[in-house]
Every structure is written in structure tokens, then in C-alpha cells.
């Protein structure tokens, strides 16, 4: 069923009782051309682009729980392409361009809202670094504006501009950045993939791999053995665990990242504001809740929940940036498990095991990458070679020395 104003009107006349299911909750078949492990945004996008761009016909997405139950439903929904490095920027810019056309492409309202992403700076050195990053973005054809404090004051009058420790000296604004509705992205890709014949299989946990000599030719699951020519992992957060089933040891640590939402209030913050010096960022959802977060807790964790010192630290950051936030009550907090790589950049590559491909290591920046990640991983799975935009995301870069580190922190995942 195609969604449109006419469909909506027709359904309204029948009391909205005749909407069909958005996607098929499929049963596993014995074999596929490609099996994608992980029914989050990245896995579903991969399946969609495999079917749409490459004409692969027999595709399954295997999800341990329900689709979008992992990090796809736990992030803070920000989309942007304000990266410095040449290995990163064109990839994220392609992702942002896909976001810009995603609703028409998927025929699904993913609520993409280009309300702007503003990074604040507090020293001359930081402003120089922002100017450099903005220039790098513009050289890649990406929009970037360096703002002075007066321009920011007009946008966000309630910020603490004259904070004794971190006075606001300016900011780097990407107007095309913004937010999208994370659950709708999952549902939209699932619906569009399902319409192209992809089997979206829920409650199907991968428990092992089927080997034929050195090659992997299938997966063992809680719903039986499924054979496939090629298998793609898109299980960020659990990449080490699934990789271990295939004998892989990876340059990844799993860390917990917390996020928070306040009670709903009237419009206060138009776009996304990041306060890097205070380890804090914030935006406001369409429902009115302030959505905010900070750093990862900083220790290995698969718990999907964090600890209170980080909650306190994030709230202190918010109070330092915008003292008026002290009047707002925090409603909920939650945690997600991040694949923190050793250089802070993702991996989209074949693995040393024939037949097995890896998409992971998204650190805490995976949501914005969803469409391009699926686009490039589908290319890799269909053609057997890296997509031009993802060629820096090689697994062997740690051995070859071609690291891709935006922050240059060294192999210490809790500092990225």
C-alpha cells in the first residue's frame, strides 16, 4: 500500500480499520543469496539498497529481538556531515543527501528536519580549529558557517555567553544538519525492503556460523540453520560477540552511552547545540522534550545502562551551557552499547573469513550514517569490493597504519 494523502483520505472514510501491515513479519527460509545479521537501521538499509540498487533477490535480515530494539531506538536522532577528514566527510555528506530524499525514496515519513547543528567554541584556538573544519567541509561542497557570538545570541538567547570558564566565542553551524525520527527510519527501511521481497525475520538470534572448509556459508540461529552465499554483520554494539562466533578478534571495545529526555516544554531550542568543552549536547524533539547526552561512561559494558556519575556530569554540562535548564525536570535516561573502535571511525569491509562481511564500529555516531552505511555495505556485499565513499573504513587499517582519527586520541576507545 502506497502512502499518500489520497490513501489517508480513503482510510479515514473506513475509520482507519483497513490499513495493511507496514511490512511482512517473515518466516526464515532454508537459504538466501545474502543474509544480513542485525535488524537495526544499518542492517535494514543494507537489505533495502541490496534489493533496490543491486537487484539481489533473495535477502534476509535476521534480528535477535524486534527490529530497532538496539541502538537504532536508543540514539539522539542527530544527522549531520560536519567532519574534518577526507576519509569521512564525503561518506557522511552522501548520507545527509540520502536523508534529504529519504522520505520520497521510502514513501515513509521519517520526519527529517534540517533545523541546523551548531558546535560552540570557547577559545581562539578552538575557533581556529572550527574554521579549519568548516573550510574542509566547504572544500568538499558541504555547507558550513562560522558564527560570531552575536549571531548565536540571536538564535539562542538563553545560553550562558559570559560563563567564567567557557565563555561562548563563536560556533560552527551546519544548517543542513538536524534530526530525524529514529524509529520511523527503522520502520521505513523495513517497509521499503519488505516491499522489494526482503524477508525481515524477528526473534531470530544468530548462535553460530556454518562453515564449509575455510568459508562461512550460513548461520545457526534460534530458528534453525539458514544458508547464504554471503553474510553481512550489522550488529554494532555486539560486533565482538558475533565476530567471536566466527573466530574474529576485532579492534573494538563495547562501551555504554547514556541519553536523556526532559518533560515536554514549549519551543526553547530550535536546532541541535553541542557544547564539546562541557561534554554536552542538546536538541528539542517535536513533542517538546529536551533530548540530551554527553560522553560515554568510559568502561567496557554490555549492560545497556550506565551509572549515576555520568548522569550528574551531563546535567552539570547542561546547567553550565544554559542555566535555565535547571527549571526543567528530567524524565527518562537510558543506555546503549557502542562499538568503540581504536581510532574512533567505523569499519565497512570484508573479514579475513571468506563469505563474512563486517559493518560496525560506529562508536556513538551511527545513526546519521544509516543510509550511507546501508548504501556502501550493500555495494560491498553485492560487488565484493569497497564502495569509493567507504574505502577508508577498512578493517586492515590498524595493521597498515592508515588510521582515521578525527580527534587523534590514540588507541584508547574511551577518549574518542
Amino acid at each position, binding site marked *: 500500500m502506497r502512502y499518500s494523502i489520497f490513501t489517508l483520505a480513503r482510510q479515514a472514510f473506513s475509520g482507519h480499520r483497513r490499513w495493511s501491515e507496514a511490512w511482512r513479519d517473515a518466516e526464515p527460509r532454508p537459504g538466501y543469496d545474502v543474509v544480513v545479521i542485525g535488524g537495526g537501521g544499518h542492517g535494514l538499509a543494507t537489505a533495502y539498497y541490496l534489493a533496490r540498487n543491486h537487484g539481489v533477490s533473495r535477502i534476509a535480515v535476521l534480528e535477535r529481538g524486534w527490529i530497532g530494539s538496539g541502538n537504532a531506538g536508543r540514539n539522539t536522532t542527530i544527522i549531520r556531515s560536519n567532519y574534518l577528514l577526507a576519509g569521512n566527510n564525503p561518506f557522511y555528506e552522501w548520507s545527509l543527501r540520502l536523508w534529504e530524499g529519504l522520505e520520497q525514496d521510502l514513501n515513509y515519513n521519517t520526519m527529517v528536519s534540517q533545523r541546523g547543528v551548531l558546535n560552540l567554541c570557547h577559545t581562539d584556538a578552538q575557533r581556529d580549529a572550527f574554521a579549519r573544519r568548516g573550510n574542509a567541509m566547504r572544500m568538499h561542497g558541504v555547507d558550513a558557517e562560522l558564527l560570531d557570538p552575536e549571531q548565536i545570541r540571536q538564535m539562542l538567547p538563553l545560553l550562558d555567553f559570559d560563563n567564567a570558564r567557557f565563555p561562548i566565542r563563536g560556533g560552527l553551524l551546519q544548517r543542513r544538519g538536524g534530526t530525524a525520527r529514529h524509529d520511523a527510519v527503522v520502520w521505513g527501511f523495513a517497509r521499503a525492503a519488505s516491499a522489494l521481497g526482503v524477508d525481515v525475520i524477528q526473534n531470530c538470534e544468530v548462535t553460530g556460523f556454518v562453515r564449509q572448509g575455510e568459508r562461512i556459508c550460513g548461520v545457526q540461529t534460534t530458528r534453525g540453520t539458514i544458508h547464504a552465499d554471503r553474510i553481512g554483520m550489522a550488529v554494532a554494539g555486539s560486533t565482538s560477540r558475533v565476530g567471536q562466533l566466527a573466530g574474529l578478534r576485532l579492534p573494538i571495545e563495547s562501551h555504554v552511552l547514556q541519553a536523556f529526555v526532559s518533560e515536554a516544554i514549549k519551543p526553547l531550542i530550535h536546532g541541535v547545540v553541542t557544547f564539546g568543552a562541557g561534554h554536552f549536547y542538546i536538541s528539542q524533539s517535536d513533542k517538546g522534550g529536551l533530548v540530551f547526552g554527553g560522553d560515554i561512561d568510559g568502561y567496557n559494558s554490555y549492560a545497556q545502562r550506565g551509572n549515576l556519575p555520568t548522569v550528574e556530569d551531563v546535567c552539570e554540562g547542561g546547567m553550565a551551557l544554559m542555566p535555565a535548564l535547571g527549571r526543567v525536570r528530567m524524565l527518562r535516561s537510558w543506555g546503549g552499547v557502542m562499538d568503540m573502535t581504536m581510532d574512533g571511525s567505523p569499519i565497512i569491509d570484508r573479514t579475513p573469513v571468506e563469505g563474512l562481511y563486517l559493518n560496525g564500529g560506529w562508536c556513538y555516531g551511527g545513526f546519521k550514517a544509516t543510509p550511507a552505511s546501508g548504501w556502501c555495505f550493500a555495494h560491498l556485499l553485492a560487488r565484493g569490493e569497497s564502495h569509493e565513499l567507504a574505502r577508508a573504513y577498512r578493517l586492515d587499517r*590498524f595493521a597498515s597504519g592508515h588510521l582515521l582519527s578525527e580527534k587523534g586520541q590514540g588507541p584508547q576507545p574511551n577518549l574518542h
Partner: protein
Amino acid sequence: MRIPCPYCGERDVSEFAYLGDAGYVRPDPDTADAPRRYVEAVYLRDNPAGPHEELWFHSQGCRQWLQVRRDTRTHEILGLRVAGPTADPEAG
């Protein structure tokens, strides 16, 4: 999460700094496959979901390095000792 420091008693996690997996051993640079061993030591991790041996520094307390055994699924502390060769008085 609280860590029972052997010198300071049970202390809040915010007093500690985290380094990571305690299994890091600096490879011998004179072995034939030293480059491969260095890549493994510097970049590759077991990253288990379950008990994990890891190094914590009590930076806001006694400033000792501790080797903690902790369950990464629950954050439960399973065991702990002072890290390094001074950990065992018998070993000198």
C-alpha cells in the same frame, strides 16, 4: 558502581580512571613476527560480554593501579587486586 579499593575501602566509580583490558603485554620487539604482535597488543581486544580483567587507576584516592575483574553485563565487581609486580608481596 563502586570499586572496593584495598587501601581506601569501597569508593564511588567517579574517583577512578579507566584504562582498559589488563591483558596487554608489550611484545618483544626482537621476535620475527613483532609487527603482527604489536598490532594485536595495541589494537585487538577480546571485549567479552561477561567477566573482564581490566585496569583502573584510583586517581582521586590512593593513586594505585588496580586490576579489577568485573562482569561487563551487570557491572558487578567479581574480584580485585593491586596491579603490577608489587601486587603480591611474596613475589617481591
